[in-house]
């Protein structure tokens, strides 16, 4: 081959390469994240990656050191990561915290978009490592380290709302609920060693530096990100019900914590009102994925119950008494044991009877469609339509009861309505003051305060029966036990009958809570109560400008709180915030649709004759 031909061939090859570079650049030009956060499309492959949400730029900030490290492993990134995880475990075992932290940094550089890495190691830092230190300040430092670790993860994965949720959880639960919560809250508010606020948001005012409020901000950001993702088809990879409930819970925890710290000012009242709005308006009206497909809103249970009642009444009107006749026909075919089980209300059956009933349910109940099938020909179509609507409504009610139960929706709704009321605030303040006197060695002065408190609590529970459920009862019983001990110190008898005897029995499991309202609930505003506490306590707690919380919430992206006022917590237009409702008012009827007639008292009956389960 002559040299000339070789040269010509080389020139041709180079020319072909150069020509091919043009389509190649169209094909594989990368997407790039601009300084303003937008992402350019890049070439065809990059656009395809973007369309199917596979590109790095779509996931979050691209860290050059991370990209470099992954390139440097030359395909052995998986091996490197395995070794690093082993190393991290070894450092943790040998209490070499410095090298442990450095190894975590290397791990997340190799796996920046793997959610579980951030979640697992942040938990390691905040929950496992922090407990290894004896000094509480060192423990706090590592709790905050874990939170910053999650923040770093959130920056690199800005389509991942779960990380924001975890940040909120750690800020709330780890700082606000741990054994050291009093100390941690104090360090957090002071921004000890400038570990948090100075690094995250220097503009946050001191009064906004409560861990629960900061947690709530992160929950709000998580909610908003989840909503944005939902619009573009990115699913939330966790239980939506729990995820979206955290915002309201954080607000309630904030209010509750203020009370536990002895704050009973308008700030607390406002905090509870906001909590009620967050819980009932935002969370209750949110479309959530139903467990068996479709979607639901927690607030809709009453609507469906109303619809169920109306449809049942319509069907009854078409053929009055038909249902009872069919039921009697079925009962005649049952054995005495079966009949006994069938005729008892669900909550009165023994376990054996419940099991028996579940086996014979089709033979012991009359479904709406069975009623419709026996309706005369001329009305049958309408009856069928009503029966189907009733079945759908009952399915929704059943699903909603289940979902509400998971987050204790009814309890927290009641609590957030009851807590801002003056009656409840007084009850709590009395208990707090009595507890403080007791703790400081003056049980004699505590006793009358306790007694006043029990009277107030009686009224509160009569007005809001759900405030006497199993959990709240246990909390009250702890206080009652302190009261008993105070009485014992002064050799006084515990009063019998005790005004809150039912609460004691509920806490002990000896009776079930009764959520029907009592007529003993006071109709008028309660009179001011004498308190043994120092009158300057209230002013010392500070009368914060309630609008500050609204303003800060609005600034942080929440558009809900500022629009909500006291009136939104009222569901019955005739009821005033601090007045006692009528004895016919029940929880089930609190939220009625705008055009619906005034709700009737729920009879609790469902299509199969069972009473709805208690939440």
């Amino acid at each position, binding site marked *: 081959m002559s040299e000339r031909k070789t040269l010509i061939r080389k020139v041709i090859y180079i020319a072909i390469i150069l020509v091919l570079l043009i389509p190649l650049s169209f094909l594989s030009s990368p997407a790039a994240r601009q300084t303003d956060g937008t992402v350019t499309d890049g070439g065809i492959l990059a656009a395809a990656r973007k369309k199917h949400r596979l590109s790095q730029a779509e996931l979050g900030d691209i860290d050059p*050191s991370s990209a470099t490290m992954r390139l440097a492993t030359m395909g052995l990134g998986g091996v490197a990561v395995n070794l690093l995880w082993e190393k991290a475990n070894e450092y943790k075992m040998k209490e070499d915290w410095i090298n442990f*932290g*450095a190894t975590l*940094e290397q791990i997340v550089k190799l796996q920046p978009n793997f959610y579980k890495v951030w979640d697992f190691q942040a938990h390691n830092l905040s929950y496992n490592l922090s407990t290894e230190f*004896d*000094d*509480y300040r060192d423990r706090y430092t590592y709790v905050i380290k874990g939170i910053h670790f999650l923040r770093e993860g959130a920056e690199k994965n800005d389509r991942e709302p779960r990380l924001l949720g975890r940040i909120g959880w750690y800020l709330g639960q780890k700082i606000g609920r741990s*054994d050291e919560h009093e*100390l941690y809250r104090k360090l957090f508010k002071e921004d000890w060693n400038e570990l948090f606020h100075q690094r995250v948001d220097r503009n946050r005012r001191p009064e906004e530096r409560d861990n629960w409020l900061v947690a709530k901000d992160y929950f709000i950001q998580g909610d908003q990100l989840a909503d944005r993702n939902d619009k573009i088809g990115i699913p939330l990879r966790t239980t939506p019900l729990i995820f979206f409930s955290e915002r309201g819970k954080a607000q309630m925890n904030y209010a509750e914590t203020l009370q536990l710290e002895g704050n009973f000012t308008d700030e607390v009242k406002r905090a509870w009102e906001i909590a009620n709005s967050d819980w009932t308006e935002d969370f209750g009206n949110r479309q959530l994925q139903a467990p068996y497909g479709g979607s639901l809103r927690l607030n809709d249970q009453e609507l469906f119950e109303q619809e169920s009642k109306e449809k049942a009444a319509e069907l009854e009107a078409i053929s009055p008494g038909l249902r009872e006749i069919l039921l009697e026909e079925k009962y005649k075919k049952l054995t005495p044991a079966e009949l006994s089980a069938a005729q008892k209300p669900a909550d009165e059956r023994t376990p054996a009877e419940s099991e028996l009933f579940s086996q014979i349910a089709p033979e012991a109940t009359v479904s709406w469609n069975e009623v419709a099938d026996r309706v005369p020909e001329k009305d049958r179509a309408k009856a069928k339509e009503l029966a189907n609507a009733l079945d759908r409504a009952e399915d929704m009610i059943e699903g909603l009861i289940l979902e509400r139960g998971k987050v204790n929706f009814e309890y927290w709704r009641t609590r957030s309505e009851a807590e801002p009321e003056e009656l409840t605030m007084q009850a709590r303040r009395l208990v707090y003051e009595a507890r403080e006197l007791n703790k400081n060695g003056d049980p004699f002065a505590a006793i009358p305060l306790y007694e006043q408190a029990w009277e107030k609590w009686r009224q509160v529970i009569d007005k809001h029966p759900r405030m006497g459920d199993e959990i709240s009862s246990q909390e009250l019983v702890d206080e009652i036990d302190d009261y008993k001990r105070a009485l014992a110190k002064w050799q006084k008898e515990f009063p019998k009958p005790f005004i809150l005897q039912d609460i004691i029995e509920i806490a002990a499991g000896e009776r079930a809570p009764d959520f029907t309202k009592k007529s003993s609930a006071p109709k008028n505003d309660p009179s001011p109560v004498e308190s043994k506490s120092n009158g300057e306590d209230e002013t010392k707690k500070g009368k914060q400008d309630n609008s500050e919380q609204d303003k800060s919430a609005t600034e942080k992206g929440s558009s809900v709180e500022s629009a909500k006022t006291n009136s939104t917590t009222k569901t019955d237009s005739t009821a005033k915030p601090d007045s006692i409702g009528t004895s016919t008012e029940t929880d089930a009827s609190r939220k009625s649709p705008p055009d619906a007639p005034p709700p009737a008292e729920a009879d609790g009956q469902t299509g199969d004759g069972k009473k709805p389960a208690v939440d």
Partner: protein
Amino acid sequence: MILEFDILPYWQWLLWNSAKFALGAFVLTLLALVVNFLILAVRHGPLMAGDTIFRVLTGAVMDVIRLSPRRVYTLARLAVRESMRRRVWIVFVVFAMILFFAGWFLDPNSQNPVKLYLSFVMWATTCLVALLGLFLSTFSIPNDMKNKVIYTIVTKPVRSSEIVLGRMLGFTFVGTVLLMLMGFFSYLFVTRSLRHTHEMPVSNLQKPDANGVITGVTSLNQNHHHEVRIDGVQDAYTDFDQANGHRHSLIAKEVDGKTTYEIGPREDLEIARVPVLGELEFVNNQGDRGGRELGVSVGHEWRYRRFIEGNSPAAVIWTFDNVTPEQYSPDGLLIERTIRVFRTHKGKITEGISGNMFFRNPETQVRSTPLSFTAKENRVDSQWVDRRQFVNEGGKRREVDLYKDLVSPDGKLEVWIQCTSPGQYFGAARSDLYLRAGDNPFAWNLFKGYLGIWFLMVLVISFGVMFSTFLSGPVAFLATLGILVISLFANSFIIPLADAVWSGNTKNMPGGGPVESIMRWATDKGITAPVSNDLNWRTGKSADLVIMAGMTSVAHLLPDLRRYSNSSLVETGFDVPANLVWQQATTTLAFFIVTFIIGLLFLRTREVAR
């Protein structure tokens, strides 16, 4: 200070290890001779076999005796030029790039940035230098044989011993130069990166107290601040930040009639504490005194420390030798401790766990009045103990002299630690309390740290050259790498596993040896699941006995590479003891000589060398 293995006095170490080493070398030599004789006997007959072995051995001895330093030097130079031709300086470029971009990975706001930075540079250096030694040494002679260049060498009047030694020394020289450069730039990198100061705004100072003492706190920088105490001295110091190991000078200045303060650069960062360790004993709740087994385990996975119960007779005792005013200070002793705490209940969260420390003369059993302290975890807690101490006698306090009354005539002193908080525990290991005998400069300590890396590099080169005399390049590479891996895991895994397999006590090492492990994996049995006693399992376990015996023999013969890592001492600001350096040097020299001899013998037996 964490020391997972004891550093014996040099002569004690030498006695124990040279006996072990000599025995192992003797057995291996005998084995090699016997195996070679048998192979040669089969091929050429017993007489020829004996004659060949005799000639090889005597030839090798003559080779070594008639070794020419000049020719060794020439061959070493050749090895250096070959290395430069292979562009070994790229290793330094890679190192420089790593340092350049290290800022992306290293956080100066870490709680202990010195440890982080030093750990990083020493780890990077170790990896690069080990890889360099591995590649250089294992491919050199095999490449020469493949390229037939070896013929041009062996036709010259050079001996096999000179070829082997020349390569080893040449590559060692190249590695040494690169290591020196890396060490120098590492020192600059660490000191420059961690250089910082603080501000001392007047608003951070309190008003003078009744004694005219002003206290305050500096600004926050690199995730820490210092407390200051000004008692009217013109130049004072901030507190010594134990977590980060340094302090700053405080300089007062008059500006417009007002006194302001400036914080100077960091001092005392670059120090290396010289700890003197004592012998550790425990006293249990019943008052029995003994070794570690009398301490309590609180369930930690890492059993480095044992614990004592609070508010009980339990105690930890360190017995120090040669405690004299000349060794330490005529005014007293500086004791440093890091006591671990284990709480069985939260107690008062804002308060630490309290303990007592007292001194006891092991001969006269006179003990001082206790000095109370609060345990500080993850920090070095320094306590100055004055020479004037007190003892309680018959309800009366009497002053005693630490050195004269509490130290025995043969220089022994017992330091006792007890926990006084009921229901809580103190944990300690031998190196958790020591007497501070002074400080050495950081640069010198860093040098000793890098010396450990140098010894490791020489070992790698020695083994690499040895394997390259009879294996091809890639195989020699893998063989050397295998030796390194076995050495790393020998004492932490192979030897304990062999102990478990031979003794049958699998509590700490369940799962059995290699054959049993494979059988468990194939039959999907977990490592703690019981296995049947049938013929298959018994055969597998018997095979493991043989395999583990072989592996343990090799593991015992190989150097313990964990003892070559001085970085943990350097990182934490502790002096690398001379004992340890001498032990490393002796081990390295021993392996250098052994690998040289083996390499020489193998090269002599190859055709090209005849």
